[in-house]
């Protein structure tokens, strides 16, 4: 019988050696990236950036070209961009910050930021950025990235929310897609009735879409939070009108019932009735006129108009929601981080990034560099000026979503009246306001 090459003992020793070596290697801190050969002798500062994907490979497609330009201008700063998945981004930053491991710069979304500002995770940038750095921004864009007058995360892109229609379905319902407009709720309801007769959905609403609810309240001419954040207006008529509209749409079967429940952060696994041409209208973003038609060439994408409850109220299109660069308070390279942020918010970089990432830039000059599809440009021009920001968009965003969602469900599923649901929300939200803002 042939003798085994390794004895059992030798095998064990070898395995143990490999395991220990691997464990040690895993525990050793990664080596700092090597400086370019031309920079020999130059002291470099490394900054870590957490970003979230817009393309299939943001590292190469978006940040490769941008950082190449930055590195040429600032060879003493090395930038490590870590493109992370969208899912669980709040929890991951929270855990990293609690462990003292937050990155220097975080690609923050406007909806997650208020909580991090309150908890001191993000630095106020008023003293670090000059008026010249921010010259290209609109007031609403600064407002959306600020809390109590302090700027925290200069935006690089803003999702322009607006209303789109399926022109094919409109034609079949007897409307002329070129001229039809549904700018009041009554006009929308009339469209919903006709769509239901054909077994089509009017639109889709999610009970965890806090942004969607805020837009409905603002369409009704109201505001959820008082300007000083000491009280909420859940029992005021515009908020009642907003939830009543949602209840009506669910109970009439104008919106897909399955969207009534689901994850706080996503609605994965649900059918997209808009793309399957069973839904007449939808709230879409910027380049959807290109992406949706690519996804279903039979979709006749018609850009709609901003809406309000009735013609006496100023129409709104949506919330100024977007992405911006926030510098975390744990950064030990604030100067380098500020240098990078200043470079990235220069209008030409904002425009270039939007081209590379397929997003919509903020600002004016940046749009001169931007090359959107004509329909995207039309969409942004039509809806952009009608976006809103302010106290509603930066007060208790996540908490409002979690408190209101189940009560919205109770109302739309007939477990509670609109007033009962709103009263329950108000009790809980007012307690949170007291806890957070005194």
């Amino acid at each position: 019988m042939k003798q085994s090459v390794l004895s059992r003992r030798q095998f064990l020793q070898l395995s143990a050696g490999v395991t220990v070596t691997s464990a040690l290697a895993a525990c050793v801190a990664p080596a700092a990236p090597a400086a370019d050969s031309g920079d020999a002798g130059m002291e470099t500062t490394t900054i870590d950036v957490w970003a979230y994907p817009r393309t299939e490979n943001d590292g190469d497609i978006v940040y490769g070209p941008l950082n190449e330009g930055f590195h040429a201008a600032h060879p003493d700063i090395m930038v490590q961009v870590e493109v992370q998945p969208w899912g669980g981004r709040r929890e991951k930053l929270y855990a990293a910050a609690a462990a003292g491991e937050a990155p220097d710069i975080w690609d923050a979304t406007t909806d997650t930021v208020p909580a991090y500002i309150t908890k001191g995770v993000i630095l106020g940038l008023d003293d670090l950025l000059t008026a010249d750095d921010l010259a290209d921004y609109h007031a609403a864009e600064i407002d959306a990235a600020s809390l109590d007058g302090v700027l925290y995360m200069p935006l690089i892109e803003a999702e322009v929310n607006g209303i789109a229609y399926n022109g094919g379905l409109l034609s079949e319902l007897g409307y002329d897609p070129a001229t039809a407009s549904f700018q009041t709720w009554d006009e929308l309801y009339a469209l919903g009735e006709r769509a239901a007769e054909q077994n089509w959905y009017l639109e889709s609403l999610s009970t965890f879409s806090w942004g969607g609810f805020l837009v409905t309240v603002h369409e009704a001419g109201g505001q959820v939070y008082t300007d000083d954040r000491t009280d909420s207006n859940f029992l005021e008529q515009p908020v009642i009108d907003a939830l009543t509209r949602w209840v009506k749409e669910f109970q009439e079967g104008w919106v897909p019932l399955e969207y009534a429940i689901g994850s706080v952060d996503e609605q994965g696994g649900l059918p997209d009735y808009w793309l399957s041409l069973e839904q007449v209208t939808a709230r879409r973003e910027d380049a959807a006129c290109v992406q949706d038609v690519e996804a279903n060439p039979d979709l006749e994408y018609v850009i709609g108009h901003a809406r309000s409850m009735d013609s006496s109220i100023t129409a709104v299109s949506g919330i100024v929601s977007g992405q911006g660069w926030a510098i975390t308070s744990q950064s030990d390279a604030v100067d380098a981080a500020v240098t990078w942020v200043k470079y990235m918010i220069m209008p030409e970089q904002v425009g270039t990034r939007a081209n590379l990432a397929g997003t919509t830039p903020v600002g004016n000059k940046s749009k001169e560099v931007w090359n959107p599809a004509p329909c995207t440009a039309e969409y942004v021009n039509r809806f952009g000026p009608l976006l809103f920001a302010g106290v509603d968009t930066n007060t208790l965003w996540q908490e409002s979503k979690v408190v209101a969602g189940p009560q919205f469900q109770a109302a739309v599923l007939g477990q509670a009246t609109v007033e009962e649901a709103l009263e329950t929300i108000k009790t809980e939200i007012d307690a949170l306001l007291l806890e957070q803002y005194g």
Partner: protein
Amino acid sequence: MAVAGSSQRASSQFLKRLRSSLPWYPFIIINALVFVLFNLVPWFSMFRYSVLKTDLLSTREFVGLDHFVRMLTDAKLHKAMLNTAWFTLMYIPLLVVASLGVAILVNRPLRGMKAFRAIYFLPNITSVAVLALIFRRFLSPRPDGPLNFLIGLVGIPPQKWLIDVYQAMPSIVGISLWEAFGYFMVIWLAGLQAIPNELYDAAKVDGADGWRLHRYVTIPLLRPTAAFIIVIATIGALQVFGSIFILTGGGPVNATTTVVYQIYNEAFNFGRFGYASALSILFFLIILIIALIQSRYLRFGDDVY
């Protein structure tokens, strides 16, 4: 002299034993380190945070037992506890019966049984996220949804499943069963295959056959396996989270909000890590007590032969 010699012998034996066991220590140390870092340290931190009002980032205020007192009046927690109990009470009996039934079927010495075992085990190695997404489509409340279509064939009207306050939790139970029963089937199989054939032969000689063989031989001899399965499955059921997080978000109207989901909510949506830690301690104690009672009455760990 004799004492010195004996001490030298003992010392050399000790060194010999140490040398011979040396290769094992790295394996033990690595596991021990992982356990300490990822289990023990967070476990002790949980106790520390439970008496603090903290969001882990900006605030840290000592509140003593306030969090435990608050639990007495926390209506959301009470609802979550009832939901968790309801889930467990539905899940455990169905899981035990279904996995045992399938294990008995696939334990037969017939062709293709290995393939069946593999197929039944597949949902267990499928990501809960993927399963949840598939089931979300399958349980569509539309009349033409897959499950509504199937029950329509036998004349049952369309149901709302996950959208209905009363049907949501049973639907989650069904999905959890689908995911887990293959794993427990394998444990039952191990138990079944450990029963000596001689016992069946002896029972046959005594006149037992068919169902009576299972009644008087299989089931009594599976008691240790059953005890293990019930204890482990109960602990798992009490901690249900993944499918609820993805499928219902605790809804509709908090009908599927379980204790673990509530802990997650308090920690990550409201930033109340102190209260979430206190809830975790309470929940740990509840699970511990249930597991101890089960172990005692199911005589977990006793031999049957």
